[in-house]
């Protein structure tokens, strides 16, 4: 007898089947935070340490297909990246229902795509961007590519801390397939869910994905992340004030997002240096200037000194002019 299931029963059953089975663990389920391409992220209470953490669990676990390994690999990759801009992993294992999981710090805050509306000024936005670059450069230094950088995967905390999340599509440079997989719950829109990310699989988010990544090329390297950072910069510049976007910044974005990886910045650090130079009023590598714009930028950067000097010269001139003869 196949019974009639109401929409409400259908939803409750779906939740019952999707929720992690936390029997025999130290965790107690509180609620669901989001859904990623490969699994869900839940707010749980660590009953031993009496604190809330985020628990990520894959939707479907099957040891034969290697997915638990993949999630654990993700946890291990993140665990290696001890950086203030990367969410720390606390614990990992396999649940009673056979699904692998890991727990991480519960980040309170907003995703960058939501937070950005509260930051209208260009300089403040660029400082956020530099913090993202710091975390990504750190990962690259540890041979880890993110491969899904986008505003939805960056969290900004209540004290201005910036955390790069969702290392679910991350990959160790030089490894043949993708590895490791989201607290923000952002699903990689173009992900083709599968047990691995071998050559030909498209993983990432359209609009933020480098062309070579979109084509599913196996030889994706750090420059794919640099392309995505360029797209994040473009997002941050979109409605920032003042308008229009300064040419030097536009040039930085263009270079980061060059179609050919060879035309991009060779490293995240060099991209970050250029943005920092712009913030300091220095010349940026991506925008060769003629003498006039260079002079104008020099004047703008040294405006205070120039005004002081001008004031001094005018005062001296006045003193000479009105000196009693």
């Amino acid at each position: 007898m196949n019974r009639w299931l109401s929409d409400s029963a259908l939803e409750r059953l779906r939740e019952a089947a999707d929720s992690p089975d936390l029997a025999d663990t130290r965790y107690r389920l509180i609620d669901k935070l989001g859904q990623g391409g490969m699994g869900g992220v839940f707010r749980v209470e660590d009953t031993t340490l009496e604190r809330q953490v985020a628990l990520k669990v894959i939707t479907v676990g099957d040891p034969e297909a290697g997915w638990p390994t993949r999630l654990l690999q993700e946890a291990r990759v993140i665990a290696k990246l001890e950086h203030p801009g990367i969410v720390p992993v606390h614990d990992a294992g396999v649940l009673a229902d056979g699904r692998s999981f890991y727990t991480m710090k519960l980040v309170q805050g907003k995703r960058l795509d939501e937070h950005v509306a509260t930051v209208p000024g260009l300089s403040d936005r660029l400082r956020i961007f530099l913090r993202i670059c710091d975390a990504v450069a750190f990962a690259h230094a540890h041979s880890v590519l993110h491969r899904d950088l986008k505003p939805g995967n960056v969290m900004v905390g209540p004290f201005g801390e910036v955390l790069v999340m969702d290392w679910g599509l991350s990959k160790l440079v030089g490894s043949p397939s993708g590895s490791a997989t989201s607290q923000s719950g952002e699903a990689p829109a173009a992900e083709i869910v599968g047990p691995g990310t071998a050559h030909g699989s498209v993983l990432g988010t359209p609009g933020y994905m480098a062309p070579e990544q979109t084509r599913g090329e196996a030889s994706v390297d750090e420059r794919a992340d640099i392309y995505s950072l360029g797209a994040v910069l473009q997002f941050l510049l979109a409605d920032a004030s003042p308008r229009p976007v300064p040419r030097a910044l536009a040039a930085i974005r263009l270079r980061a997002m060059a179609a050919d990886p060879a035309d991009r910045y060779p490293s995240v650090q060099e991209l970050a240096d250029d943005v920092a130079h712009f913030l300091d009023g220095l010349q940026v590598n991506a925008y060769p200037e003629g003498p006039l714009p260079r002079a104008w930028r020099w004047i703008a950067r040294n405006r205070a000194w120039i005004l002081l000097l001008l004031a001094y010269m005018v005062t001296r001139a006045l003193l000479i002019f009105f000196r009693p003869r």
Partner: protein
Amino acid sequence: MTDDTSIGGVRHQFPSTHWSQIEGTRSPHAEERRRALDSLISAYWKPVYKYIRLHWKKENEPAKDLTQEFFARLVEKGLLDRFDPERARLRTYLRVCVDGLVMNEDKAAQRVKRGGHVTLLPLDFESAEGELRQLPLAAAGNPEELFSREFARSLFGLALERLRRELEEKGKGLHFELLELYDIDEGGKPLTYDEVARRYRIKPTDVTNYLAYARREFRRIVLDELRAMTATEDEFRREAHTLLGVKL
């Protein structure tokens, strides 16, 4: 209501795990083909019928004919042979096939040849009609969502039936009753675990353990069924994600 079909006879049980029914429909062995088609029809006939009724706004009788016609074609014309899991999910493929059939409804000479309202499969349309009356008017929205939701309803219903049977066989009928109480039954404020424990004369911890067990088994069976209803590992994972991970 019954899940019988004329193809597979009485359908007591789903086939073994990790075996795709799609592959089964292409088997050289007639018995395997029949069993596979039977399973697919059991899971899909209600979504197809409701989809024709709601999305295509067909009356009861024409919808019955079209549903019968659809599954007859599925069996006789080997529609599944043309299914390519690389290009679409089975669910989407079947819905598009239904669309094609309904759009050509005016050219229904074949149905007339069959003699109109001939019952090809003993499908329990009355129960499907009863379910339709309980659906909200807004149910017929996006066709893909409608078909997906009705497929989930059908699959969950079949999985629950299998869960009930398996738990009863293991002497764990109470586990199923608790699942019914918390996750299926409609009505007022949910009872606390203490209240339920008093009602069934068990410990409150037993309530949580039994419930966790039943939910775990339900999840296992749903995934098991889904695996049988999908052609590739990739399709299975995407369907599982849609069915379990994403709000329906």
